[in-house]
């Protein structure tokens, strides 16, 4: 028995392929695990947080913003109220005109 038999040497060629189990694990990692992980991360941080949740929160924000703007209509000036009233009446007439069957 020679000492060399017990020495750990790096296999080469086909031996290396076998030693690494045909690289099946690495292949799985490359083509399935990592892409799925990345895709999951993308869904979590972009789609979920910005798109879907952003849409939901956006509805809330739009309502708050809209009500803040509408509040300005309550100016206390009778003139502007009369103007709005006339405009509203006109709108009703227009709508009625077009909706008549």
């Amino acid at each position, binding site marked *: 028995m020679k000492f060399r038999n017990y020495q750990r040497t790096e296999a080469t060629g086909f031996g290396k392929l076998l030693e690494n189990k045909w690289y099946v694990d690495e292949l799985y990692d490359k083509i399935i695990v990592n892409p799925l992980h990345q895709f999951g991360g993308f869904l979590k941080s972009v789609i979920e947080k910005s798109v879907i*949740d952003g849409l939901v929160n956006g509805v809330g924000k739009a309502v708050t913003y809209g009500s803040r703007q509408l509040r300005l209509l309550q100016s206390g000036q009778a003139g502007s109220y009369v103007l709005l009233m006339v405009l509203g009446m006109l709108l009703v007439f227009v709508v009625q005109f077009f909706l008549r069957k």
Partner: protein
Amino acid sequence: MIPVLLILLPLLTGLVTFFIKDEKTARSWALLASVATLAVSLLGLTVMNDDTHLSHKAQWLQTIGSSFSVKVDGMGQLLCLLTAISFPLIFVSTWHSQYKKANNFFALMLLGQAGLMGVFVAMDALLFYFFWELALIPMYFLASQWGGERRIKATFKFFIYTFVGSVLMLVGILYLQSQTPDHSFSLQSFYNLGLPVRTQSWVFWLFFVAFAVKMPVWPFHTWQPDAYEQSPTATTMVLSGIMVKMGLLGVIRWLLPVLPFASWQNGDTVMTMAVIGIVYASLIAIRSDDIKRLIAYSSIAHIGLMCMALFAENKSGMQGVMIQMFNHGINIIGLWIMVEVIERQYGTRKLSELGGLAQKAPVMAIFFVIVALANIALPLTNAFAGEFLMFNSLLSAKTSYLYAILFTVFAGMGIILAAVYTLNMIRKIFFGELTTVTANAQDIKLNEKLAMGVIVILIFWFGVYPQGLLNITDELSQVLVNKMDISHLLRKQ
């Protein structure tokens, strides 16, 4: 008699709890009350399981065509039993959790239970809506007063989201009532409606959005991970174990048989949404570091599968969903109990900060692994039978053959992904090196062992012998499938 008691017992004991100032007494009182409710539920399942005991009708708002009509049918039996089992388990397992103003906490929990029971047994649309809201309100207060740091924002979103849904449903209910010949809210009149196809398709969405938010189905789900994360865990157990079943029950009892044309018409759309949700939520669960969020997303995936099976519109799907509602509730409460223990003991829910717990807490590891495997629906665990029936139903779904195959394949991916994130979670919590957080860990206490023991017994019992659950739901699912069958309706016209 039985359904009235199921509602009244938690309602009255809950109201009394508000006035019990001593924390220990309030706790014991709530546990006693919930055990009494469980006894009533078991009584209804075994000794007094005939129609005279299981249904009750009394006058209520007669002028507008509503009545206090309650009945425990097959699905009601399972869901009432689930609700009745859950509350004692929740109270026992969180025995050592501290709450400020504990009496209010337990009172609201019991009121929530009353609301849930009401939803499950109501046979009148207005009554159903009434209990639907009654269940929501205590949950709102529970989450917003005893929750985590971001609780106000999360519960506000939860409340507005579900409330928008339920108001749409109210519009739908009022419309349907106006269409009934006798102007009645009763379920039977709704079943006999037979609306024209075009009307059905828009009324469908009024109801479906309400139920989709509650279940939740993608993309109506974003309230859910936040609400689960921020609520106190005892409340999360109610939300995820029982409350999401309200949405499924709504679809089964109030949507599919009432609007069969529209349900068939929109089935593909709904199933597509649900299957996207399954894959989507599972992938996010894989990347979640917070255990609570992981379980929340896992729950979205499971509910997505149930929603798909419902719209497959056949008996095996219907029955699979009914028993799965029960089993999913048991399993997820088991998971939450473990999360509660972990959070209370180690002060963190982050997977990255945990590790090696199996060395320090072997009993906990055993329980956790069993519940987690049930979460993946391994054979011999309770979730297997239901999941098998649901996949069976997907393959024979009333869509084109290609769709059925595609749906089954993608939903099947959900199982694989579930195994990935669940086993990953087990590995990260229980194996590997001990961390600074887990270095001085202790095993679970007697009360937690007791609650988990009951859950594990149920897991194996219904895993080995699901026939009991199937027998309860057999008749009802056949009746419902007949009502949904539109070819039979076409022949009649």
